[in-house]
Every structure is written in C-alpha cells, then in structure tokens.
C-alpha cells in the first residue's frame, strides 16, 4: 500500500534521513520505533507532505506522492495525526472533528463518521461543545484521532499518540488502534511505548540516526536481545 524507497530528507543543510526503506501493506499495523531525534517525526512529515524529500520515492496505492502538498496527500487517504496533536484550540470539539471531514468525499459521510467517532470515544460526545484547548491531554488525543478518522483514512499514521498520557489512557488508545485495525484500517504507528506498540503491531522498523537498522515481524523484534536492552529496558 505504502512504499518508501531510498528516502533522503534534510532540514536546510542538515540531513536527517538516509536512504530509508519502508513498506506498509494493506491491513497491517506497522510500528516505527527509535530513540529521541532518530528521525521518526521527519519520516511521517515527509510522507504526509509537510516536508519535501531531497531524494527518493514515496508511493501510495501505486501512485507517487512524494513532493505533493499535504491536502493532496490527505485526499488520497493518507491521514497523519501529528506529534503534539495540532488541534484548533479555540474551536469546539465538534468543529475540530468536522474539519477533519473538510474534503468533499469525507464531508458527504460526516454524520455517519461522527457517530462512529463518538462510539469509539464516548467522552468526546459529552464534551462536544467545549473548546479543544480546554480539554485534558488524553481527551485532546482522542480529538486528534477522531479528527483523522473523520477524513476516512486508508492509511492512518500516528506520531506518539500516547506521549505524556497516563498508562491507563495509553492502553485505551492502543486498544482503539487495535480495534480500528480489526475493522480493516491500515496503521503506521510511531511510539515511545515500545512494548505496547510491538504488542499490537504485525511488523516493526527500528530507526537510528536517520537510518532503518532493523525490521521484521513484531514478535521477532520483541524477542530480540538487542532490542530488549535498547528499547524495552530489559
């Protein structure tokens, strides 16, 4: 579904991704793990069009999307829940969600999708009138995921959705992702909660200093001694 090949990305003159190779197949949850500053966020930003690659190809459903503007990539069904959530703080929860369905195809389905988001996150239905900026961190993350779902993603990319959340909430978010995947959603997940991410993922990639250093089935990586000591603290 998503094929990233030989991807090189730089901030001005500082290159941070080197020859990245990554694939996400339809129906999978793929985890991307790596320490701070490894380049995870940069990779997602490049896939969603917020950054332009120096070199390399990104194909989604057999079409090249590298270098397209974000709204165009969004229209093709690649939806990115960014690090820090990027909600509209002085707009209501409901307005944040509706804006996720800004594009015509999604807009036509928005009432139906809203029902589905409320079923996943009943808390949002209670808080629908509140400004997004006044919500707790966990609720904001629900809005961010809800807004992405409103766009009817074919591929959902999440950048550290559990950052700064209490363990219960982290677990709840992971459960939702697993449930979405069970209903057919393809997911690319960046997470610091390596254990939980590997628990729900089918496959995983490890990125270090801008290069993919390992990849394979999630079980295999979970059992790997080097991974266990570096990322799982075991």
């Amino acid at each position, binding site marked *: 579904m998503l094929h990233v090949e030989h991807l090189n990305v730089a901030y001005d003159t500082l290159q941070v991704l080197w020859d990245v190779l990554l694939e996400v197949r339809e129906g999978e949850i793929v985890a991307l793990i790596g320490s701070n500053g490894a380049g995870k966020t940069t990779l997602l930003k490049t896939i*969603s*069009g*917020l950054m332009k690659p120096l070199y390399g190809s990104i194909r989604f459903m057999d079409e090249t999307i590298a270098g397209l*503007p*974000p*709204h165009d990539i*969004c*229209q093709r069904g690649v*939806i*990115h*829940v*960014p690090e820090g*959530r*990027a*909600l*509209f*703080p*002085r*707009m209501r929860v409901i*307005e944040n969600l*509706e*804006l*996720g369905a*800004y*594009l015509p195809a*999604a*807009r036509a389905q928005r009432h139906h999708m809203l029902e589905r988001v409320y079923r996943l996150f009943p808390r949002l239905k209670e808080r629908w009138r509140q400004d997004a900026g006044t919500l707790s961190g966990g609720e904001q993350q629900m809005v961010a995921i809800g*807004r992405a779902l409103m*766009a009817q993603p074919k591929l959902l990319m999440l950048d550290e959705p559990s950052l700064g959340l209490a363990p219960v909430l982290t677990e709840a978010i992971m459960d939702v992702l697993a449930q979405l995947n069970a209903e057919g959603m393809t997911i690319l997940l960046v997470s610091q909660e390596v254990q939980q991410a590997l628990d729900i993922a089918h496959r995983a990639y490890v990125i270090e200093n801008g290069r993919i250093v390992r990849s394979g089935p999630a079980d295999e990586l979970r059992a790997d001694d080097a991974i266990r000591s570096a990322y799982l603290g075991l």
Partner: protein
Amino acid sequence: MLYELAQSLTSGLLIGGALAVLSVGFSMAWGITHVLNVAHCAFAVLAAYLGYWALNRWGIDPLLALPIMLPAFFLLGVAMHTLLIRATARRAHDLGLATMVLTFGLGVVMENGMLLAWTPDPRVLKTAYSALTLRVGPVIVQAPHLIAFGLAVITIGALYLFAERTFMGKAVRAVWQQPMGAALSGIDLDRVTTIAYGMAVATAAVGGVAMSLLYTFDPATHLSWLVYVFLVVILGGVGSMLGSALAGLIIGLIIGISSVFIPLAWNNLVLSGLLIVLLLLRPQGLLQR
C-alpha cells in the same frame, strides 16, 4: 452641555461603526494571512471615489454600486495575493515586514493613480439622503451616519456568520489557529488564505463607502484613515472581528467625547497619542483574550 454630550456620543458611536468596518479587513489580513496591508485604506479611498463617480456620472447611489464593487475588490485582493504576496512569502522570512514594505509601495502608486484620475481636490459626497435627519428624543441623528453604521453592522455580522457557520469560514479560522493541523485535515492553505485575503480587501470597499458618507476625502486621505485603523486593530486585537467591532465603537466614542472638549484640529493628535500609549502599555491589544 449634557445635551451636547449626548449628541456627540451618539454620532461618535455611529462613526465608530464606520471605523470598525474600515478596520475589520485590515485586522483579518494581518491576523489570518500575516499580511500587513498598509494600502488597505488606499483601497477604501478608491472605493469612495468609485462610489462618488457612480453617483455623479450615472446617478447611481454608492450603496447600490457596492454590490458591484464587492466582487471586484474581492478579485483584486485575490489577484494581489496570488501574484504579489505569495511570491513575497516564498522569499521573505518576516512576511509582516516584507508585505508592509510591498503594500506601502502599492499605496503610493494607488495614491498617485487617484491623483491623476481625480485631482487632489477634496470630494464631498452629496447623496439624496445627505441632509436627512432623524430625531430620537433630544438627539438628532443624521441619515448618512445611520447608514454608515448599518453598513458596518451588516458587513461585520455577515463576516461573523461566515466564520462561525460555514465550512469555508471554519477552515479560515483553522488555518489561523493551527496551519499544520489545517493542512493535515485536507485544507489547501494557499487557497483558503487567498480567499480570506480577498474578503479582507472586499471589506475595504464597504469601509471606504461608509467613511465617504461621513467625511470629505482626497487621494491622500488614506494615510489619516490608516491611523484610525491601526488604533482600532491594536485595541481590538489583531485578527479578531468582534474585537474590531468593539474597538471601533470605543474609538468612535472617544472621538465623539473629545470633540466636545477639545478643538477638532487636535483630534488626530489625541488619537495618535493614544495609539502610542496603547502600544507602550498593552502591545497585544486591550481586548485580546
């Protein structure tokens, strides 16, 4: 004295409406699109001339000319944003500063164009309702004041409904509050910003017609209007429509009150002084939350 004060407060409030509608687009452009359009009031004066021209050439009241001017000014704004401002944005680090210089030049060009077309003679708009008055209790309200105020209420009300109720309006607010989040929601930032900018320029046409109902104007007038506009926008908070509305009314009231106590010629001095004090005390604006 008391009667005089009531009279001045009333006309001050109505003038405030005109100032609000003159300012709201400038505030939008600055807040939402980060363009400091110091030619904003040159567009307003252009609209004042076009209204004047429509009346004296063809006998069409400026109010009736507005429905034609609005889309024309909108397209002018769209063209300006697409051709000039986006090109500047690609090169500049500080868009506010770069566009200020750019639009200052544009303002000079427009002023000279208007000088050539219409001479430096001050114009007075004489409409069918110029001399009409309305008695409300002891206070006399002049029809042009009331109409200017009505234009402001309709325009700012429509902008507010657009921003609160329509998908496009919400997209504009989204781009303003969180551009990255907006882009990731499928909003085309360039397109939405250009539309918002076009609307901002279109409101300058309303502001210009409203002001021409109240004051004489000539091509250089745009600079003195710009002082009012800066004052209103700083007071109301950059980008806030309701802030502009409220601040316009406050400045109008101040103009009204000060006209009772100080000579008219000092009016601009007082307002400019107020602007400086305001910038020193609360540069983020009085009404900004």
